[in-house]
C-alpha cells in the first residue's frame, strides 16, 4: 500500500514509568488474576466456614503472634518501598541500591516469619477441611511472597552490574508497585486466617 508519512515520533523517549509502560500493565493484569485467585480462595474458605457448624473443626485457632508480627512488618515495609520508588524515579542509582537491599532483607525476614506462621496454625493440612483450607490460603500467599522476593533479589543483583541502565529504573518502580499488592493482598488474609476462627 502507498504510504504517506504524516507524523514523526523521533522525539519520543525510549522508556517511561508507571502506566506509560507495557510491563506496568502486565503487572496490573497479573495483579488482577492473582487478586481473583485470592478472592476465590477466600470464598472457598468462607464456604467451608458456612457449611461447618464448628469452626475450626477439630483444633484451636492459630496463635496470633506470628501473623500479627508479619502484618506489622508488611505495613512498615511500605515506607522503604515508597522511598525506593522515589529514588528510582530520580534515577538515583545509589538510593535504589540501598532501597533494594533493604527490601530484599525485609522479604527474606517475612519468609522466615512465614515459617513460624505455618508452625503456629495449630492444624495440619491433613487434619480436616479447616486445616486444608488454611494451609492452602497461606501457601498461596507464600508462593506470591516468595516469587516477589526472588524477583527483588535478582533485580538487586542486576542494579549492581553494568546492566543498571535507565530502563531498569522503570523495572524497579514496577517491583515497588507489585510489592504494595503483596502487602494489600495479605491484610484480608490476616483477618481471615487469624480472626475468623475466633468469631
Amino acid at each position: 500500500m502507498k504510504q504517506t508519512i504524516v507524523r514523526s515520533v523521533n522525539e519520543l523517549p525510549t522508556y517511561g514509568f508507571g502506566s506509560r509502560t507495557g510491563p506496568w500493565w502486565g503487572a496490573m493484569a497479573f495483579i488482577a488474576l492473582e487478586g481473583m485467585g485470592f478472592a476465590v480462595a477466600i470464598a472457598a474458605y468462607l464456604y467451608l466456614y458456612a457449611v461447618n457448624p464448628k469452626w475450626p473443626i477439630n483444633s484451636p485457632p492459630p496463635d496470633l503472634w506470628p501473623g500479627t508480627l508479619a502484618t506489622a512488618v508488611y505495613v512498615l515495609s511500605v515506607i522503604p518501598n515508597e522511598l525506593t520508588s522515589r529514588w528510582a524515579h530520580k534515577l538515583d542509582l545509589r538510593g535504589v541500591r540501598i532501597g533494594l537491599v533493604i527490601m530484599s532483607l525485609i522479604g527474606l525476614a517475612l519468609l522466615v516469619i512465614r515459617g513460624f506462621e505455618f508452625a503456629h496454625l495449630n492444624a495440619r493440612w491433613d487434619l480436616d477441611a479447616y486445616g486444608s483450607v488454611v494451609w492452602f490460603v497461606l501457601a498461596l500467599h507464600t508462593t506470591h511472597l516468595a516469587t516477589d522476593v526472588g524477583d527483588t533479589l535478582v533485580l538487586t543483583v542486576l542494579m549492581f552490574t553494568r546492566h543498571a541502565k535507565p530502563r531498569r529504573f522503570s523495572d524497579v518502580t514496577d517491583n515497588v508497585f507489585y510489592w504494595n499488592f503483596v502487602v494489600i493482598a495479605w491484610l484480608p488474609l490476616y483477618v481471615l486466617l487469624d480472626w475468623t476462627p475466633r468469631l
Partner: protein
Amino acid sequence: MSDIAREPARDLRDNKLEQSELAALLLEIWRTPSGWLGSLTSVDHKVVGKRYILTAFAFLVLGGLLAVLMRLQLAGAERKLLSPDLYNQVFTMHGSTMMFLFAVPVMEAFAVYFVPLMVGTRNIAFPRLNAFSYWTFLFGGCFLWIAFLFNVGPDVGWFAYVPLSSLQYNPGKRADVWAQMITFTEVAALAVAVEIVVTVFKQRAVGMTLDRIPVFVWAMLVTSFLVLFAMPSIVVASTSLILDRLVNTHFYDTASGGNVLLWQHLFWFFGHPEVYIIFIPGTGMVSMIIATFAGRPVVGYVIIVLSLIATGFLSFGLWVHHMFTTGLPQLGASMFTASSMLIAVPSGLQIFCWLATLWDGRPVYRTPLLFVLGFFAIFVLGGLSGVMVASVPIDMQVHDTYFVVAHFHYVLIGGAVFPLVGAVYYWFPKITGRMLSERLGRWNFWLAFISFNVAFFPMHILGLMGMPRRVYTYTPEMGWDHLNLLSSAGGAAFAASFALLIANVVLSLRSGALAGDNPWGASTLEWATSSPPPPYNFSRIPVVTHRDPLWAGGGNLPVVAGLSVERREVLLSSIADAEPHTREASPEPSIWPLLTAIATTIFFVGSIFTPWSVVWGTPPIAIALIGWFWPTGSKEDEE
C-alpha cells in the same frame, strides 16, 4: 548517575530511508533466526500464532476422532465396540480436548496472530511469554494424550465431579492427569490473556481511539478479561483436587468437614464464563466477516461493543444454572433463571445488528459468508434451547440428557466453530498468501451445515425421550436406536466435512491462487500489509483516522516515521485516544521460554507422583526465568 541517564548517541531511525532499504533493515532485526534451533527461539507472534493454530486444529482432529468412536458405539443398542472403561475415557478426553486443547487455544491463537496486525503494531506485548505459553500448551496437550495412549486417560468427565474423581473412587493416576492438564492449559491461556490486554491497551496504532478498534479486537479484549477472572477459579479447584488426592487434604471429603458442592461452585464459576470465552471470539469473527462481505461497516458498532462487554459481565452471574438439580435453595436458583435468560439480550442485540448490516449491504456469497449464514441458523436455535434450560423446571427434565448435548453443540459449534471455519477461509490468504479453493469451500460448507443438523438435531428428541448423557450403551427396548443411528450417520458426514477443509488447506497451500494484500477488499489494518506479512508486520506504523482505515484512505496509508531500525522497537500509545508516547524496546528471540516451559512441565508432571517435585522442581524454573529476564547486552535490553 548522569552517565547512565544520558541518551545513547548511536541511533539510526527510519526517517529518511527508502522503502526497500527500510524493509531490508527491519527484516534483519525482526526476523526469526534460521535453522531448527533458531526456530525454537522465535518470539514472532505470527510464527507462534501459526504454531498455536495448527496445534489446536491437530487436537480438533483427535477430539473429533473420539467423537466418531462414540457415535459408532451409540449407533445401535448394546453395541460392544468400546468397553465401558474405555468409553468413559473417550468421552472425558473428547470434552477435555475440545474445551481445553481446541476451542479456547484456537481462539487465543487467532488473537495472537491477528490482534497485533489489526491494531497496527510489530509484535505482541511480552512476546517471550507468548512463546512460553505456546510451549506450555503443547506440552500439556501431549501429556494428556500420551497418558491416554497408556490407558491413564481421565475417565471422570471434563467436569471431574468429586467424589467420583477423589482417590477413593478413582485410584490410580487418571484424575491427576486431568487436573494437571488443566493447570498446563490455564497457565497458557492466562499468559495469552495478559498479552492481549496489554497489546490492545498500549500498542494500538496512532489514532486508533477506543471507538476505532476493530470488533474482533474488542471481542478478544473482553475474552481476555474473562480468562483473567474466570480461570483462577479452576486453578484453585484443580489444585485442591490434586492436594486431596496426593497429600491427603480434605477439601472434598465430607467425613472431615469438606463439601462436594464446593467443587461444583468452583468449577462452574469458571465453566460458565468458559463458554463465553469460546463464543465471544466467534462473534468477533462474525462481525468482521459480515462487514467485509456485506460491503459496508457493521450497523451498530457501539451496540455490538457494549453487548460484548455486557455478555462478559453477565457470564459471571450464571454458573448456578449448571447446579439446578443439586438441591440448592429455591430462591437462589430462581435468580439464576432470570440472569441466565437475560444473557440472551446482548446476544440478541448483536444478531439484530448483523441482520441490519446484511439487510443494507450487498452480500457477496463467498465461503466465509456462507459459514456465517450457517452460524445464524444454528446458533439462534442453540441460544433458544439455552433459554429453555435456564428455566429450573425444564432443566430438571433435560439436565444431563442428550437435549443438553444437542444444546451446547448448537451453541459451541454453531456459535464458535462455524465462525471459526469461516475465519479460516477469510484469513488463510493473509497467513499463507494463497486463497483457499472456493469450489471445495462450498462443498465444505454444505456438507458441514447439513450433516451438523442431522447429527445433532435428533439429540434434542433423544433427550426428551429420556436418554441421559455419558451412557456407554442403552437397551433396545428404550426405542432410542433409530435416532441414534441417524445422529451417527450425520456425525460421520460432519467429520468428513473437516477432512474436506484439511484437503482444501493442503491443496491450496501448494497451488491456491495468489492472494495479494487485500483479496476481499476488507477495511482493517491486517490487510494493509503483504500476505503473508513480513516479520516486522508494517514497515511504518499506520496512523488511523477512521474505524475502517482501508476504506477511508482511498489506497493511501498515513504512517509515522521516527522509529529505530537498529533494534526491535514498538510504539506505545495512551489507552483512550492512542496518542503515542514511548518507543519501547521489544524482546529479541530467546531459547529461555522453551527451557522454562520444559522446567515447568517437569514440575507439573512430577507433582502427580510426589509432592517433593515442588521442592526439586522449583530451582530449574527459577534458573530458567532468570535466564529469560537477564539482560544480554543487546540494544533491546540496554536502552
